[in-house]
């Protein structure tokens, strides 16, 4: 069985001490890396 959850995109907390950075190739379903890059670039620009 799989479980599908919504995010809480209205409530996210940054990791104040974290050193890791976003690595799209490390996410599940890495075949989506290009679409994710487009979304991140569009959102951050």
């Amino acid at each position, binding site marked *: 069985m799989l479980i599908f959850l919504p995010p*809480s995109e209205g409530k996210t907390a940054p990791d104040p001490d974290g050193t890791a950075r976003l690595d799209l190739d490390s996410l599940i379903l890495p075949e989506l890396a290009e*679409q994710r890059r*487009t979304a991140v670039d569009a959102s*951050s620009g």
Partner: protein
Amino acid sequence: MSRQSDAQEILKVGAKVMGEVERNQQLWEAPAAPAHDVYTGVLFEALGAPDLSATALGRAAEKVLVFSGLFGATSFTDRIPAYRLSMGVDLSPAAGDGPGRLGGYWRGALAEPLRERVGDQLVLDCRSSGYAAAYRPHPEQTLVVNSFTEREGTRKVVTHFAKHARGELTGMVLRAEQMPETVDQVAELAAERWDVEVRPAAGRTPHQLDLIAAG
């Protein structure tokens, strides 16, 4: 987009959270933490990720997908930055290419990868409608979780409690000695906490698991 003067309007957020929107400008540079730590809303609080055993967390990493306006879907443990962007946003730029409406963008991108990943497994669907539209498994293999409070015979949906119940049920599933794999097994587990009703799938409507609490 987050640097644009109309970012607040595009993101459909109030002025109070524009500080959070500014985080979107540093998505590549910001610290990235496991999704279950970054998301801090009611559902995730009720799920209680910090208290999951190593076994349960491993199960979550394998079995949980968190849908997202920014990433389409991530695992429970994927490392992501904090951000503010919902599936209902339209990221169409004034000129040039862009994702456009994120719901449609991810619906197209997720269809094939998720069809393969889901296979013939049952999906316990705790998403709200905006995220559910990004990918819908076959109704016969989908169990949608609903939550109601009941008072004097009248049922109503209270959003806060519905999110809490979905998070709590997810936590119960992840902590179960043996992970449920069928509609009946999920209902049996849920019945330890709520009054439960199951409505079988019919046509294009998935199975429905109604969790009923006294109001």
